[in-house]
């Protein structure tokens, strides 16, 4: 058996598998890329070969056009495996967003699993995370501090709906990541019995249509237009976090600024962004989920990619695991 540390390297482009000669979520165009999910910091355009789930490939085509790759797409359904220069690659559900996957690599008797971004909570828009046994588990650490404990999604949605009842003359503008978070929030609103039309910033429309075409029912959606903007008092409008304070929002009536993000747990952070109604809704694992996952996966060794790696490395060590930080840069998820 060859330990993964002897065949996995961190290079400027990203994590590289030497015998397979492919990268995982590379930041720059490469020959061969395994893409765990469609968020822009993980899925870039311009690779020659792209290995990803059919859903992730569909998202990449929707975002970057049908020519986002220069040679070939290699769709892999969950659990299906492929041999790349003697490395066996398979993808497994990560529960982060539609199509998100963990990448399992097996070479010379050793296995390593890259979690990508993941969560353990129920999410009707994607397949739930599946623990995959391995020798080395590579995990994200976006919310790896014990102060991050995401409340139940239903509670946060209930707060949004309560605010809507309390302030029926204010347009409730919710900042949410356009891919994944937006659709999950809409699904949760529907599950809570909110069947009104939800209004969308232009940047979210195509992705919502894509989700619907892939079988996720989002109910009645309308774009915000110059004509209807002034009539949206008492309505829910979703926009990317960056548009919350943009000129775009000026035409909406009496805006009440909300934001759906795991970061909203930290008061000063919400306040700094001018958020009046912070909704702690995250597509990443919180502290308890991260710890639970280390136990469920059961790997004797853990590598931590991006986020608050020092706390997770400390905790894993306390749990008797071998742990180290990879110090990957470029994946910090501010808008999450």
């Amino acid at each position: 058996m060859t330990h993964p540390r002897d065949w996995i390297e961190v290079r400027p482009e990203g994590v590289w598998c030497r015998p397979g000669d492919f990268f995982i979520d590379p930041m720059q165009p490469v020959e061969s890329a395994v893409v765990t999910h469609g968020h822009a910091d993980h899925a870039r355009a311009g690779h020659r070969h792209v290995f990803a789930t059919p859903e992730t490939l569909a998202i990449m085509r929707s975002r970057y056009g049908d020519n986002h790759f220069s040679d070939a797409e290699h769709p892999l359904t969950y659990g299906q495996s492929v041999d790349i220069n003697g490395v066996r690659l398979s993808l497994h559900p990560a529960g982060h967003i539609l199509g998100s996957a963990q990448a399992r690599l097996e070479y010379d008797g050793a296995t390593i699993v890259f979690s990508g971004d993941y969560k353990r909570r129920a999410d009707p828009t994607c397949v739930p995370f599946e623990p995959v046994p391995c020798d080395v588990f590579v995990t994200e650490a976006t919310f790896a501090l014990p102060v991050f404990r995401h409340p139940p999604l239903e509670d946060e949605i209930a707060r949004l709906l309560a605010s809507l009842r309390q302030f029926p003359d204010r347009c409730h503008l919710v900042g949410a990541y356009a891919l994944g978070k937006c659709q999950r929030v809409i699904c949760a609103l529907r599950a809570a019995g909110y069947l009104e039309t939800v209004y969308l910033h232009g940047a979210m429309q195509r992705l919502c249509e894509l989700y619907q075409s892939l079988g996720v029912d989002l109910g009645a959606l309308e774009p915000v237009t110059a004509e209807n903007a002034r009539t949206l008092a008492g309505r829910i409008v979703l926009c990317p976090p960056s548009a919350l304070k943009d000129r775009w929002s000026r035409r909406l009536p009496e805006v009440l600024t909300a934001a759906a993000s795991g970061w909203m747990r930290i008061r000063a952070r919400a306040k700094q962004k001018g958020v009046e109604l912070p909704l702690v809704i995250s597509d990443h694992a919180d502290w308890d989920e991260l710890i639970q996952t280390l136990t469920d996966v059961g790997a004797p060794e853990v590598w931590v990619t991006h986020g608050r790696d020092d706390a997770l490395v400390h905790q894993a060590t306390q749990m008797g695991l071998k742990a180290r930080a990879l110090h990957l840069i470029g994946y910090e998820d501010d808008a999450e």
Partner: protein
Amino acid sequence: MKAFSRLLESLYYEPSTLGKTRLLLDYLRTTPDPDRGYAVAIIAGDLSLPNFRRAMVLELIRARVDSTLLALSHDYVGELSETVAHLWPAPQAEQSDLPRLHEVVEALRHTPKAQLPDYVAGLLDRMTSPERWALLKIGAGALRIGVSARLLKQVLAKFGDQPVERIESLWHGIDPPYLPLFDWLEGRGPEPVVTERLTFTPVMLAHPLEARDHALIMPDTYAAEWKYDGIRVQVVHSGIGRALFTRTGDDISGSFPDVLAHLNFHAVLDGELLVQRGEKTGTFNDLQQRLGRKAPSAKYMADYPAAIVAYDVLFLEGEDVRACSYDQRRALLQAALERHRPEGIRLSPQLPYGDFAELEALRASVDNASVIEGLMLKRRDSAYVAGRPTGPWYKWKINPKLVDAVLMYAQRGSGKRSSFYSDFTFGLWAGNQLLPVGKAYFGFTDAELKDLDKWVRHNTLNSFGPVREVKKELVFEVAFDAVNPSKRHKSGYALRFPRINRIRWDKHAQEADRLDALEALVAVR
């Protein structure tokens, strides 16, 4: 306790004063006594809980959380109360009932010190994270939720439909949970009587002198004094003690024990707080050194000795003299100061003048080096009245100083202005680089703000979160009251009260002023 937690949470995130006022009014209307009184005391910072200490909270959390994780978490969150609120390992059980706020406050006050940690831990175990935050903030004292004691008094005034001055004059004479106050505000009881206490007496304020008022100003009718650039204070000494208040009634006795010690007779005086070294009066900057210190050391008081220029007397030897005329009160004040000769308290001199032209000359004679910011004109036959009556007192500030500065950075505003770049940092030339000298966010109209916002968006070089660096091409005529040397600013200067006087769309950045322009205007120590 749950209602109070919800109130704190909403106040924290509510950006507007109007919104905060509405939240507080709702709370006062729907919350029974004595809970609401304790809530008011907590928000006003008037509740003393000597045993609920930071050290106790630290000890509780250290016993429950790994020390490395605690340190990393505290470092990340920044605030201890919030860190502990999030970290506390609570059984995520079903929502449990909590005691009422007054029960919690009374228990925090009366539980013996040795048993207090157990009581607090027991409560934290039953709380959600926002509830824990509220409880820990009660102990921490400083809430930092953007509600000042002044705003709270205005809300109480609105709640009971009473003038805010009456609330202010009562404030230091009543104790939490203020039952007699609420009885009075809700029309069930008489106005609380406070005599044997050290209380704040609401102050008299002046209107700016407009051109149309000039004809009124004659030497027989109006006396003239300097207007000082210090801090308006009320110093109180009675049979039961001494106190120093700001003009809004905040008690700042603790920061100025030296000033309090000076007043060696029973009186309530109105005056200006300044730093005074022998004959030399310090700048506003000097005074700011003292303001921040809750308990200044002896060395600090020696380096920045505080003194008072007295200009009025409200009570003298227990007698209310506010109904006397200005001339009579001034005579009383002068006689008392001559008799008792208090160290560090001097009389604000009167400025004799023959006609209005002489006053104008006096005003023009004020040089930039002084701590004088203009003239006060006070009607000789006027009584001392709380509030801002029209006619008896006028303030006549010296003309502002102007420089042409170049816009360097723009930051998004808050509240209604949150989508506008409305906070502007500007600089002056030093060689061929610009050094920032100040920041201003008013002085322009709404229409001008729209144009500025557009300009910023079209001329951005870099973005740093809510801040944009812009092309160094737009010139502002900036008005300010004074300029002081400052070690905190890279340029070496700090402007007092800067505002945008005019936007010079027509002017080239190269023609803006150089840093030397401030040198000539600087206030000399």
